[in-house]
């Protein structure tokens, strides 16, 4: 395999909330098409890190580049955000739009498609995530698992090169976790770059090309999943794995 260039590059990234340092000196390069899973205890900065990639959080030190463009306020931010889609823990579907229009809205406003074309494409995407028959309903009428699949379809509608997932299954009842993970699994290896925060260890091990382990705002270890899960040399990672795997 030839060395793929980095589509996401973070160099020396730092982020403070007041006096509190949520991210410290983050260096991370993610290759085109790679699947990277961020693990770490709650509060370790995982969400903050991925939110810096599309500037939902403004970092205050270092550089983040997406596809060679520096991620910062200004004219180019919107073009970065068109490349980077995000799936949220709380789904964040638009309650005032139907399921179909939740998915079609971005392409209509950003890619300037007609509503007719955008809805046609939205239907295909809903079909792909297995909820085509819910298209005319509103988000509140769907189960959590279904809502999150809409969230994924909405993200895919922008044809992003990068998909960010922040604990996509953490707000779901256990019986719905599988259906959402299956959809995400289907995306891996499709050429799109995935950056995931999850607590589903089996899933992480299965889909990840690399595991990034964080603690207290720092990256403590980066390793292929088999190495990480069976032979991490990092004491903190070991303790973290012991805690989550024995539950």
């Amino acid at each position, binding site marked *: 395999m030839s060395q793929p260039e980095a589509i996401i590059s973070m160099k020396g990234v730092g982020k403070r909330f007041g006096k509190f340092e949520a991210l410290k000196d983050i260096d991370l390069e993610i290759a085109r098409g790679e699947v990277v899973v961020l693990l770490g205890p709650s509060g370790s900065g995982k969400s903050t890190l991925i939110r810096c990639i599309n500037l*939902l959080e403004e970092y205050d030190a270092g550089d983040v580049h997406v596809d060679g463009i520096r991620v910062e306020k200004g004219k180019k931010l919107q073009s970065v955000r068109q490349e980077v889609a995000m799936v949220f823990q709380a789904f964040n579907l638009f309650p005032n739009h139907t399921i179909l229009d939740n998915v079609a809205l971005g392409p209509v406003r950003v890619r300037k498609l007609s509503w007719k074309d955008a809805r046609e494409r939205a239907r295909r995407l809903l079909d792909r995530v297995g909820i085509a028959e819910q298209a005319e309903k509103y988000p509140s009428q769907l189960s959590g698992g279904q809502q999150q699949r809409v969230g994924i379809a909405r*993200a895919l509608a922008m044809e992003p090169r990068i998909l960010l997932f922040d604990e996509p299954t953490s707000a779901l009842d256990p019986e719905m976790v599988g259906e959402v993970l299956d959809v995400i699994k289907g995306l891996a290896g499709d050429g799109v770059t995935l950056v995931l925060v999850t607590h589903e260890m089996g899933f992480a091990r299965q889909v990840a090309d690399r595991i990034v382990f964080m603690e207290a705002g720092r990256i403590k270890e980066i390793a292929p999943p088999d190495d990480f899960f069976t032979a991490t040399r990092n004491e903190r990672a070991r303790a973290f794995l012991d805690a989550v795997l024995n539950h």
Partner: protein
Amino acid sequence: MDIVSTFFNVDVLLRYYPLLLEGLWRTIALGVLSIVLGLIGGLLLAIARLYGAKPVRFLAIVYIDVFRAIPVLVWLVIVYYALPFLGVRLSAFASATTALTMISSAYTAEIYRAGIEAVPRGQFEAAQSIGLGSFDLMRDVVLPQAIRIVIPPLTNNSINVLKDTALASVVALPDLLKQATQAQALAANPTPLIGAAILYLILLLPLVRLVAVFEARYSRRGAR
């Protein structure tokens, strides 16, 4: 002199009701115009206050605070009697519309702001993450949700504006109240005043009821 012929004198009412109706239409025109302009002005002010550059935000705050603090009547009198000294001479109707709109805008701005701030942050983030610009974000995602929250207080504010139109009689605008006092003087009988009061009630009571209905409806749906 009995109560009926003093306060509910049918002859007087029949003679002067065209005058009252004329005043009623002027009151409605003034009220509706000020309400609509105030709804538009308030939205612009709210957006300036929330998202404007620092100096813009500061000016918006000053405007909103000043015009919520100043009594409507005082501002109305200033617009009508003081502006001519600057060479700006507005008709009574234009003065009243200007004064009421300026004050209503300040109140509606605060209402919109509360509504926009009540939309969960995740909605803004989701809209930004699919690349919507700030105009689309407001139009397609935030404002439709905020409007539900602000419909009851905006209706309430509209009632206040309608009631405040009566102050325009001070600047000699022949609105409902002014016409009624005129008729009362001509007839030497207070029946026109009672008639005006009843017309105000007919105009405003349904709106007051409407607020209660809206409040019940939107609070039920808002319980997410």
